Structures are given as structure tokens and as C-alpha cells.
């Protein structure tokens, strides 16, 4: 096998992806730092407001994808060995499932907790603190803290989504999406605390339920897409919205070979890179090792994400292999 088909690892990423990866790592670390500060700030004022508590826990949970990404990264960069012939790319997927399940579980707990609080008509108590000789209602401090940290996601959300697209990384995409929802969490807790201040005790629990629904949905979406990838569904784009464009590119690269009668591919997403199995029906029944290597190299050359290609000669392309995608799914594949 040629060396080009064994390039698992960061050193082999193209320039653009290397830049995106460095930027993603920086942003993830910066986010962790920011969240550590905001968790500490909220801890000082959390009091007995359910919506503050829920927003606080959401803050802690929002670090999960970042931690998973940073932990999985060195594993993903390892080369495939005899013991781990597919590399350790699944580390990202496993981390993604764990993070999704944690979100789902905690979101449900918080949802029922705030729901029971509302049913039992628990009136949240928010007292005062003595600040430099003045008595200040703690609610104002809560609102102040939340108003400050609401800014964060607007700063670190967009660059993560950009990096997710360039790197085809679903954890980064999930992280960016969660950041997008983060500000709603903080805004909802401000509404909840303000409601308590106005004597509308139920607004706190209602805000907490709103926040926990967001956490549950995050958890559900993350678990579903991560599990589907671990179950080896056909590779999708980084935001799981369409079949991966690489499928069309590989197919047209194969059809361009004159000895190929018919071609089909089976593509699965290993986390950041793709594993492709190619099925070729040759025109003259004798393809030869050189031609097989050529086909593999053609497919490998179409995209940096293709790091492992296996070519099989067959007399019939199996039904589960993709031989064509609906037109329009990839604009580069019209000719």
C-alpha cells in the first residue's frame, strides 16, 4: 500500500485545516477559561433561584464538548496500528455520545425539578447582601452577573462554527450550536430573577423550565447524531444536513477511469476523517494490482478527509453501496 493511504494524523492536514485546528484548540481553551470565571461568578450569587441554578448547571455542562474535543484530539492524531487498524478516530464519537447523554440526563432532571417546584408553588427566596455598607438585593447582582456573561457566546460561538465546517468536526459544530443557545439561557434567568423581584414567583420556575428544555434538546440532538455515526450511517456533512459531498467526488473520480464499468462506495464518518470502501466492476475482468492502487489514490486525492480507502473488485456493486447521489446535493458534481 502506498504511504498516501496511511496518513492518519494532524501533520498531514492541509494548511487550511491545520490553521482551523489550531484556532479551534485556542477557542476551546479560551472558552473553558471564560466559563470557569462565569461559573465562579454565578456561584457567588446563585442563591435559591431555580432559574439561576439551572443556568449555572447549564454553564457547567456547556464545557463538556470542549473537554471531549481537547481530550479526544491527541487520540485522533495517532496513527493506525496493527492493534488499532482504524486508528483511534472513534474517540471523538464516543466523547460526543457521552456529552450528549450527560446533557440529556441533567436536562431532564432539571426539567422535572423546576416542574415540581412550580406545582408545589415553591416561592424562591432571594435576600440581600451587605456591599460596602449598603444593603443590596441579591437579585440585582444576579442580573448584573448574567448580563455580563451573556456576551461570551457571541464572541466564541461563530469562530467555533467556522472551524467545525473547515475541519468537518461534529463536536465543534455541536459546541458552536450550544453557544448559540447559551445567551438564551442567561437571558431567561434574568427574566426569572426579575420576575421574582416583581413578586411573580412562578416566573423563576418557568424560566428554569425553559432553560432545561434547551438542555434536553441539545442532549437529544447531540446523542442522536453521535449514535448514528457510531452505527456507521452513510457519512453526512458536518451539520448532518445532507450526504457528504465526498461521496459524489469519489464516484466521479472512479468513473473517470476507463477500465471501470460500474462503481459504488460505502463511506462512513470516523469522527473527523472518512473511511471509504470502493466497489468496482471492471470492464475486462482483469484489473491488476496497479489499477487498484490507482483507483484508491484517485479517491484519496479528492479530499483531505479521505484517509483510508479500500478497493474491492466485484462482479456486481452491492445494493447498500452508493452509486449515485440525487443531483443538487453537490454542486461540484454535475459533469
Amino acid at each position, binding site marked *: 500500500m502506498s504511504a498516501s493511504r496511511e496518513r492518519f494524523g494532524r501533520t498531514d492536514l492541509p494548511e487550511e485545516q491545520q490553521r482551523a485546528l489550531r484556532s479551534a484548540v485556542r477557542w476551546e481553551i479560551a472558552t473553558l477559561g471564560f466559563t470557569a470565571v462565569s461559573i465562579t461568578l454565578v456561584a457567588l450569587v446563585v442563591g435559591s433561584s431555580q432559574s439561576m441554578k439551572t443556568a449555572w448547571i447549564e454553564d457547567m455542562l456547556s464545557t463538556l464538548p470542549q473537554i471531549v474535543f481537547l481530550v479526544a484530539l491527541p487520540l485522533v492524531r495517532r496513527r493506525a496500528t496493527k492493534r488499532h487498524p482504524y486508528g483511534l478516530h472513534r474517540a471523538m464519537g464516543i466523547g460526543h455520545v457521552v456529552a450528549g447523554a450527560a446533557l440529556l440526563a441533567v436536562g431532564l432532571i432539571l426539567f422535572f425539578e423546576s416542574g415540581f417546584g412550580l406545582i408545589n408553588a415553591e*416561592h424562591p*427566596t432571594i*435576600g440581600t447582601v451587605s456591599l460596602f455598607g449598603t*444593603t443590596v438585593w441579591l437579585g440585582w447582582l444576579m442580573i448584573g452577573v448574567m448580563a455580563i456573561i451573556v456576551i461570551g457566546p457571541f464572541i466564541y460561538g461563530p469562530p467555533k462554527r467556522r472551524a467545525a465546517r473547515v475541519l468537518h468536526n461534529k463536536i465543534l459544530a455541536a459546541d458552536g450550536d450550544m453557544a448559540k443557545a447559551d445567551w438564551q439561557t442567561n*437571558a431567561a434567568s434574568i*427574566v426569572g430573577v*426579575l420576575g*421574582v423581584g416583581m*413578586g411573580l*414567583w412562578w416566573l423563576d420556575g418557568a424560566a428554569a423550565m425553559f432553560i432545561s428544555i434547551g438542555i434536553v434538546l441539545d442532549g437529544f440532538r447531540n446523542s442522536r447524531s453521535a449514535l448514528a455515526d457510531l452505527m456507521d450511517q452513510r457519512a453526512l456533512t458536518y451539520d448532518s444536513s445532507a450526504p457528504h459531498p465526498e461521496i459524489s467526488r469519489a464516484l466521479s473520480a472512479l468513473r473517470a477511469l476507463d477500465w471501470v464499468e460500474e462503481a459504488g462506495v460505502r463511506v462512513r464518518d470516523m469522527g473527523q476523517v472518512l473511511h471509504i470502501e470502493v466497489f468496482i466492476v471492471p470492464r475486462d475482468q482483469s484489473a491488476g494490482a496497479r489499477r487498484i492502487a490507482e483507483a484508491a489514490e484517485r479517491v484519496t486525492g479528492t479530499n483531505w478527509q479521505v484517509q483510508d480507502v479500500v478497493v474491492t473488485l466485484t462482479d456486481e456493486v452491492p445494493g447498500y453501496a452508493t452509486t449515485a447521489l440525487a443531483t443538487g446535493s453537490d454542486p461540484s458534481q454535475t459533469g
Partner: protein
Amino acid sequence: MRRILGAITAVLLIGAAAGCGMTIPTDPDGTSEGVVGRELRVGYSPEPGLIAAGGEEPSGPLADLVREYADSLGAEPVWSQASEETLVDALDRRALDLAVGGFTDKAPWTDRAALTRPFTLDEAADAARTSVMLVPAGENAMLTSVESFLDEEGLT
């Protein structure tokens, strides 16, 4: 769209609060409105060195403090004596505005009553001892009123 909705909600809430001349925090059940200029329903359970049962009214430094607080609101204290748990129950039913006695910040009643910040009484038998008072849970204006009084007295 949701961003705009959130912003509108926040502005409306603040506007509504300011428009009604509402003070924040406000009591959901109006405890402090019923107290100011009227009567302060105080429940107490005797605690040596702090508050002792008397003929008509209790005595002791804690009883004096409550009288002073009622005075600052132009309210007349109306006393009743009971065990601590009965007092918490009465607060929960909104039958009392304030409960005092041997409560500390370790009190286990936090889901049924609101604890003030801890304070110390110089005239108490044990001057280092910290106490708390209890007000109905979620009555945040009442809580703020008591805590502000304690701050002004320099006891916290």
C-alpha cells in the same frame, strides 16, 4: 427573532416595574404591605439569653430588637408563642410575618421559610452567638426589610 423577543420581554418587565412605581423586590403575598403602619405578627419560641416568655409580652434582647424593628415600620408587634416547628408552619401558612427564637443559619427549614442573614446581639448572654430570624419563604421584600434593618443596626 427570539433575540428580539427576549429583549422586548426584558424591557417590558423593567418598564412595567417602573411604571407601576413597584419596588423591587416585591412580596408575592404582600407580607410587608400588611406590616408597614399596621401590625407585625411575631411568633417566638423562648431561648435562654435571647428571648424569654413574659406575662403579656416576651422579654430579652431579641424581643427588644423585634420591638425596635416594628417601631421602625410604624407597626405594632403582636406576639404569639409556640415551638419552632409550629412557628415555621405558621410562616408557611402566612399566619405569621416573622419568627424569632433560637434559630441559627443551620436551621433545617429553608424550603418552608426564608432565613435572614446571621446577626449577633451584644446584649445576649453569649455575645458571640449568631442568630437568624425567619420570614415567610419567597417574601423577598419582607426579607429585604428585616435584613436592611439588621444592617442599619450594625448587627450583621
